[in-house]
């Protein structure tokens, strides 16, 4: 996951017109932001347009980079705001509801062999994650995959920190239930 001081130095370089740093920032966050936005828009073209807007704004406002405390959160919040604006314009405000979000998490185990996980268990895990309720899955993905803190996720989604705690707890419980079931069958 990106380190905070790395992001700070990237930000400073971008403020100094460093395009290589700008490109690095783009590559670092493009996929994660796209996945996040896609969960709302469900459209590849719209998602790409939105993420491009997020980044061109960064470039346009690069001189004010020092005013941004948390670049990572800033990117996500910017992505969300731009997404919601587009959806509003398209009269699809229903899609801004967290319960209609459809986010696609990565495969749970990058290296199943290392944890002595059988293929069957891995598949069960994957489908357990996919079956999580939308809001729960979104929070799980943001925390586990995107590395947001509880506070960042709460700010981003405009929910309380205890909501984030609860949802994550529910996620782990549901996921492990899938494994327990598999275990029994062995």
């Amino acid at each position, binding site marked *: 996951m990106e380190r905070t001081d790395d992001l700070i130095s990237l930000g400073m370089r971008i403020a100094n*017109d460093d395009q290589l740093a700008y490109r690095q920032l*783009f590559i670092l966050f493009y996929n994660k932001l796209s996945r996040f936005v896609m969960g709302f828009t469900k459209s590849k073209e719209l998602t790409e347009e939105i993420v*491009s807007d997020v980044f061109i704004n960064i*470039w346009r406002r690069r001189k004010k980079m020092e005013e941004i405390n948390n670049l990572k959160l800033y990117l996500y919040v910017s992505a969300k705001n731009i997404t919601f604006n587009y959806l509003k314009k398209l009269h699809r405000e229903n899609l801004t509801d967290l319960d209609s979000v459809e986010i696609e998490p990565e495969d749970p185990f990058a290296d199943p062999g290392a*944890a002595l996980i059988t293929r069957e268990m891995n598949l069960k895990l994957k489908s357990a994650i996919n079956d999580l309720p939308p809001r729960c899955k979104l929070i799980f993905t943001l925390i586990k995959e995107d590395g947001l803190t509880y506070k960042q996720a709460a700010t981003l989604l405009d929910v309380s920190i205890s909501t984030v*705690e609860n949802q*994550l707890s529910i*996620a*782990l419980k549901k996921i492990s239930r899938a*494994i327990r079931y598999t275990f029994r069958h062995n």
Partner: protein
Amino acid sequence: MPGQNNSSQDQFWTLLSKKLSKEASAEELQELQSILLNNPDLHHHANMLTEMWQQGSINKGIGSEAAYMRHIMKHKDELFLEEDPIKINIDGSVSETDAGFLRAFFSRKKSLVYSFIGLIITTGVIYLFTQNRGAKLPPQQALSSVVTKNGNRTKIVLPDGSQVWLNAGSNLDYNNSTFNKDLREVSLNGEAYFDVTKNPDKPFIIHTKKMDIKVLGTVFNVRSYSNEKIAEAALIKGSIEVTLKDRKDQKIVLKPNEKISIANEEPRAEPKQNKIIPANTSHIPQIVVKELKPNPTYNIIGEIAWTQNKLYFEDETLEDIALRLERWFGKKVTIANESLKNVHYRGNYESETIEDVLSSLKLSKSFNFRIANDTIVIY
């Protein structure tokens, strides 16, 4: 589970998730420990979830490099791409252009400006000398130069409306004042895809190291990097006439879907089904005219694959591929193992990262590679 306190169960999940997200306080960690002590059956879950969490996701990074290219092309007037040529006079002064980007690009990097200009001037002088042999280029005019850096591609529109897409690591020079007078002349080092506006009265001539290409109005691709072994011109539409610098008497006319390849240095053996023009002496480079074929597996014509953001190797040595990768991704690629340099590979890539490309290539014939920041070593 029988005999278990439900709220202690729930507490377990809350604490475990806090621990995994690094949000747990010292007390919470201790609490978690004691729950585990009292409930050994929970160990398995804790371990498995911890493993899953720590392994992290497979950060494919798929498509982000290509997406970045699309992003900068979309906003090219705001981002820096060298779209407007830099006007440099023979005496070394830089003309005022209205390209605002120039100021933004150079404002903080004064030393870079001077070395950059120095480079262009050298190239400009070389081109002028080459062209002065028989050509009518007037000496005191401004030379325009468009340069791409590795990792970037750019498109420019020439004064006559012709469009040129420059591939990474290329430069195109032309004389801005005389360009559309009697002739339309440019010099190219690198690779470019031309869409030339039709004008039979003003021939369009491209000078490269090994060939001069004369066109009337067509669509074609020219590839002539000084550090590559073969120079090529491929015709898509119309007709072009190629004059070889080493054999001025012989003019070769290409028809659509033909391409000409010229060895930059030593002659290289070519397959027999192509027309081979025999050399008169052993120093004249070997030339081959081939038919362009879309590759049936990939459905693209190799020579113009790069204008569609596809990276395509038909049958290239790893050494050549490494060069292509350097230009495409803007990273340094070196081959430490000499014996790997001449191994041939083929492949077709679109939005993969450089890591994906190398992983895929090594599946056919193995090698290792190591990535550190922006440098890749193949060994």
